[in-house]
């Protein structure tokens, strides 16, 4: 075999030595081991997930036995003194803070991605994309400190305005009333939105860039505006990937711990206002695990973890359902 037959580490074999079929061919030992390794890796991940769920469920048994499922879910009492535990305020807090993050983060991510993929001149694309990706590299504790020390005081100054303007609206005004502390559910939602933004916008940008330029060019040729191209051509073409990106962001928002603990205010009582303090399941775990002395207390905290897994799976399931329905409706319309 001459030296030129070796291209970048891969041996070019004569035709007769190559595997006959393209699919599953274990003629070479390397292929055999690669196949096994890939299968092992795939099952390992699934196995770890199931093992985790089983271990957590097992460690929550004391609490499940004491409070049951329904009672634990709907009870608002979390009292380490009387050893009565209920998860309701934390489930709501987790869902509400993540929802705020999504409402703020998804449109901004979409805007960023469209800007980079469609609008920005080349010289500005790279710096903006790099800046967005840098956001993802910042550890969450830094977001927490930034939120507490820099964002919260500034936001506190905006809160009287929110009180006056949004709080005065009948009905939804209830959501925007409270003392101007700068910390609370809304602050947590905003910090979360910033944290999930790089994940969502990077994925959206990457998939927007792979839309065939022929599609784009035909739309522009027919007189479509940039908005119409983004909304009617690019987004439908990349929908699954965009949704995947949003899920990644949502998953991070639901599970984010330290940043939320710093800025949410950590109150176990439910409030009707976004400006008031609240708590999420991860923040309660971060706060109370080290000092949980009794078996029932520890078990209840682990039970909260189990519920967080369930909440994440349910939210994901509902979102998939929603997308299917949207897809069907679109199919019917077309």
């Amino acid at each position: 075999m001459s030296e030129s037959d070796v291209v970048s580490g891969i041996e070019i074999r004569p035709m007769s030595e190559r595997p006959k079929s393209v699919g599953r061919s274990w003629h070479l030992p390397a292929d055999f081991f690669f196949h096994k390794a890939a299968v092992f890796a795939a099952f390992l991940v699934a196995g770890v997930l199931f093992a985790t769920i089983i271990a957590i469920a097992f460690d929550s048994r004391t609490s499940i036995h004491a409070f049951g499922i329904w009672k634990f879910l709907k009870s608002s009492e979390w009292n380490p003194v009387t050893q009565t535990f209920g998860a309701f305020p934390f489930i709501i807090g987790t869902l509400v803070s993540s929802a705020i993050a999504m409402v703020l983060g998804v449109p901004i991510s979409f805007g960023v991605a469209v800007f980079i993929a469609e609008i920005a001149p080349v010289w500005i694309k790279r710096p903006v994309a790099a800046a967005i990706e840098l956001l993802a590299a910042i550890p969450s504790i830094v977001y927490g400190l930034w939120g507490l020390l820099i964002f919260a005081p500034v936001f506190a100054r905006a809160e009287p305005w929110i009180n006056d303007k949004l709080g005065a609206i009948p009905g939804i005004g209830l959501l925007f009333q409270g003392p101007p502390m700068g910390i609370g559910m809304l602050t947590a939602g905003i910090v979360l939105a910033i944290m999930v933004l790089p994940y969502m916008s990077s994925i959206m940008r990457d998939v927007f860039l792979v839309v065939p330029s022929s599609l784009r060019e035909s739309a522009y040729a027919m007189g479509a505006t940039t908005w119409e191209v983004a909304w009617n051509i690019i987004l439908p073409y990349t929908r699954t990937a965009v949704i995947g990106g949003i899920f990644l962001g949502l998953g991070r928002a639901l599970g984010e711990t330290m940043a939320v603990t710093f800025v949410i205010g950590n109150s176990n009582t439910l409030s009707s206002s976004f400006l008031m303090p609240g708590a999420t399941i991860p923040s309660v775990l971060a706060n109370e695990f080290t000092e949980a002395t009794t078996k029932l207390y520890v078990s209840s905290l682990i039970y909260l973890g189990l519920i967080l897994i369930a909440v994440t799976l349910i939210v994901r399931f509902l979102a998939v359902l929603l997308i299917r329905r949207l897809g069907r409706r679109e199919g019917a319309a077309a």
Partner: protein
Amino acid sequence: MKSLRLTAILLALSLVGLAASAQSTLTGAGSTWVYPLVAKWAAAYQQNNGVEVNYQSIGSGGGIAQIKAGTVAFGASDMPLKPEDLSSAGLIQFPTAVAGEDLVYNLPGIQPEQLVLSGSLVADIYLGKVKKWNDPEIAKLNSGLNLPDMDITVVHRSDGSGTTFTFCDYLSKVSPEWKDKVGANTSVSWPAGVGGKGNEGVASYVQRIPGSIGYVEYAYILESHLSDARMINRDGKIVSPSLKGFQDAAAHVDFTKAQDFYVILTDHTGPDTWPISGCTWQILRKNAPKEMNLAVMKFFDWGFEHGQDMARSISFGPLPENTVAAIKSYWKKELGYSL
């Protein structure tokens, strides 16, 4: 993680009797509050005696759990264990040093140590019953002060903490309603307010929210220059927090008469006694190897003997002398051997 594994290995070695050699490591874990003191003592002790003390500040609850599991030589807790819990788990405990905590506030126009509060008033504020700074109850104690017409924002710890236990224990003693509705523990179900993580979390909320009030450790107040309140103690005297006030609380409870030193330093008599005083206990296992317990005893005995100036320098009050003597005879009585 690495140091934890190392600790575990060293501990395993000590269990097979290798700890008898002069160069050894002593491991402890627990209270974050006592960490600065143990760390200071440990550094000096290593220089003088060549024994390394490795203390992990993982929280009092963690300290209790670790000593029960036998993974450390001593556990530290700011909340003493009840004598019956100690004996059922085969543990003993003794106090280390006293300290205190105070309320800090952020009130425009009002200087440090100007505000005077009583225990029952603090309980009503933390219960959410007294909502405004110009409430007649507050005005009654502070006739000279121009109290603003401002909402009170209550700040408490969000994480479990011995500081919270001491604070709530005090409120339970001075307010039947507090005892009834909230009680005392390292974490409680707070009726009102916002929670900050750690002393620094509470301090930063108080600094940032006008009209807020929170409780933090005394050493932390000195460091962060927050405005702290004076309190009316059990004798009806208005006192400022001080090392002497914490030591007076310890002197008035008489540790020597209590079973397993189970006394809590809040709300005691004495004209200078600071009402929200606290203490940290060290917990040992009775059936731990004799060498290990002896090493712990030697370390703390050295601390009681030589470490008191170090304690004072970081706002920890030394224990009264008769208490130290009582600890030594307690060791002998409970463990069957002494230094």
